[in-house]
């Protein structure tokens, strides 16, 4: 199943293989296809609204925008079944919205409000929704890679047919713990799917300046006897088809997969990235926006299929903008946490007032 980059469809022009006919795509309804468009637009409008808040100085810390990569989260996460789980790094807003977290709780978290998904304790990089099988939101590069493994291990231990989609960046593949995780995944037959979102840069370092490989990053899986594939991330049908193969491999054979999905981010590494325009040419960004924007490409595809027209598109987009604007309002209107809230959610036993939470001193303030 593995292909080398040389055989990979060129980034320009139409994908020579039509993944629309793949089994997982053939039966998609019009509503589902429009739903993917809506989700991609929701991510983009949410993030554009968050960018404004950031620029107004209403947000602390970092804001890593996902804009340009929306097809990856939507194409992969929409495939999750009841026992499938997901975990990612700090560029997590897209994943959060696709698994069903509300714009309100996410926007409020960005502003550090008590109504945020983590009550204002996590911030942009640390969104979580275990009730939606979404385990974060992790700030340390590749730190989430063994956690995804452990989640998948637990599923297998519990006898559930599921997997954990575990996302990482093209820079994260050079962390040792990722390789430890690959070895364990293969050795123990763990149903984990590693998804490398290759947006070609880790902060200001291009792929060529950070990773040694023969042809691509996923190929390193070969050394661990793990199946792998590379995916043209701008084609939602391809993302779905190849991710589904990986999920099925996890479900049916309990085997891991490494997928490398080619994609591109339009903004700086984070909004605070002072060198955003130095390590790549503005023309490069423009080229991707013009020719490879995953949302535009999906819109065109749906228009060709005759299920979308300009009026329909406008309606979906307006709804996304409205939802984002309402989330901004909700976040701005929400209260900040109280000072006492600093000391909750540290120890389960203390929060629950159990016996174990009451013996000894847990916090060492005055």
């Amino acid at each position: 199943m593995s292909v080398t980059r040389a055989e990979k469809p060129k980034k320009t022009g139409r994908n020579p293989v039509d993944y629309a006919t793949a089994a997982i795509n053939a039966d998609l309804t019009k509503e589902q296809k429009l739903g993917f468009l809506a989700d991609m637009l929701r991510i983009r409008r949410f993030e554009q609204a968050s960018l404004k808040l950031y620029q107004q100085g209403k947000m602390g810390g970092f804001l890593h925008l996902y804009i340009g990569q929306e097809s990856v989260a939507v194409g992969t996460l929409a495939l999750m079944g009841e026992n499938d789980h997901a975990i990612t790094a700090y560029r997590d807003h897209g994943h959060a919205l696709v698994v069903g977290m509300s714009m309100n709780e996410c926007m409020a978290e960005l502003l550090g409000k008590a109504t945020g998904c983590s009550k204002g304790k996590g911030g942009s990089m640390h969104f979580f929704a275990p009730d939606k099988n979404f385990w974060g939101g992790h700030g340390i590069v590749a730190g989430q890679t063994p956690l995804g493994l452990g989640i998948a291990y637990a599923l297998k231990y519990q006898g559930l047919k599921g997997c954990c989609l575990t996302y990482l960046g093209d820079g994260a593949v050079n962390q040792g713990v990722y390789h430890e995780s690959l070895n364990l995944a293969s050795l123990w037959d763990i149903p984990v799917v590693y998804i490398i979102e290759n947006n070609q840069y880790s902060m200001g370092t291009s792929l060529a300046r950070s990773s040694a490989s023969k042809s691509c990053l996923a190929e390193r899986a070969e050394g661990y006897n793990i199946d792998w594939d590379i995916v043209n991330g701008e084609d939602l049908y391809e993302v779905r088809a190849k991710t589904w193969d990986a999920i099925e491999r996890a479900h049916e054979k309990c085997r891991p997969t490494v997928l490398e999905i080619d994609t591109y981010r339009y903004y700086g590494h984070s909004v605070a990235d002072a060198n955003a325009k130095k390590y790549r040419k503005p023309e490069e960004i423009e080229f991707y926006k013009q020719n490879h924007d995953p949302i535009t490409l999906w819109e065109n595809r749906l228009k060709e299929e005759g299920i979308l027209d300009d009026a329909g598109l406008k309606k979906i987009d307006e709804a996304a903008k409205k939802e984002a604007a309402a989330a901004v309002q909700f976040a701005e209107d929400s209260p900040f946490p109280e000072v006492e809230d600093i000391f909750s959610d540290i120890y389960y036993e203390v929060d629950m007032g159990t016996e174990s939470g009451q013996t000894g001193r847990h916090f060492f303030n005055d």
Partner: protein
Amino acid sequence: MPVITYRQALNDALAEELERDENVVVMGEEVAEYNGAYKITDGLWKRFGGKRVIDTPISEAGFIGLGVGAAMMGMRPVMELMFWSFAYVAYDQIINNAGCVRYMSGGLINCPLVIRGPANGGTNVGATHSHTPENFLANTPGLKVVSPATPYDAKGLMKSAIRDNDPVCVMENTLLYGDQGEVPEGEYLIPIGVADVKREGTDVSLIAHGRAVLTALAAAHRLHEEFNISAEVVDLRSIRPLDEETVLASVRKTHRAVLVDENKPFCGVSAQIASMIQERAFDDLDAPVQRVCSLDAPAIYSPPLEALQLPTADRIIQKVLAIS
């Protein structure tokens, strides 16, 4: 009461919890087929099988991270570090993931994980294998740290650690594994966060954790025999949460405190205790709080010298005499 080793006490605790709760698994390097590098898991693989007792590759970051992920999903993994010194390659997983995930998720996720293994010097294995990182670990709100000194405490604390719904680091000691002590037959738990007065006294409080408790007891014995000084020995047992009241009650009774700590002095556990005593019992003190720590250098290999680098009864006695 049956007399068993510290090793056997830990083994019994693991076996009982494996038996009791199928969410418990034991993982680590050589824990299964080899029966444990220090034989703490002896016989468990044979008894419980490879699904419950699992050999890992030498990938501390990978397997501790896996344990954190599994704990987030509701399992209760007990992860063995062959030495706590090796935790340093897994620190990100312990501090950032196990220690912070509950907080950063606003309480949505908890992590009922145990990480256990020996953390001690004194075995002539050089600096890389002799670390005592309980102070580093206890510095992270979100982690709990316990350090049993006796077989009885080892069993009771290990069982509590496994049942606790927060991540607990259990700091054991290879020099204690063969020690014998009374351990009751039936089930018992020792709550985390409760210190224990191991010897009553009236003239000075020796406050310690782990093997330093035994050193303090030896010093207390000699202080009584040779100098007619009555030393009380307080065993912290748990470092975070910390039983401050038992420590303070002892200091208020004896008016003198000497802290004994196999940690290095700079920001070691005893530094925290010293700060707490001067803040809360200043008026009760008849002398400055004293500390006897490991001598402040990387652990030396040379056997006769390493014995002197750790706290000794002699050094404790000198400190006590200096303030008596």
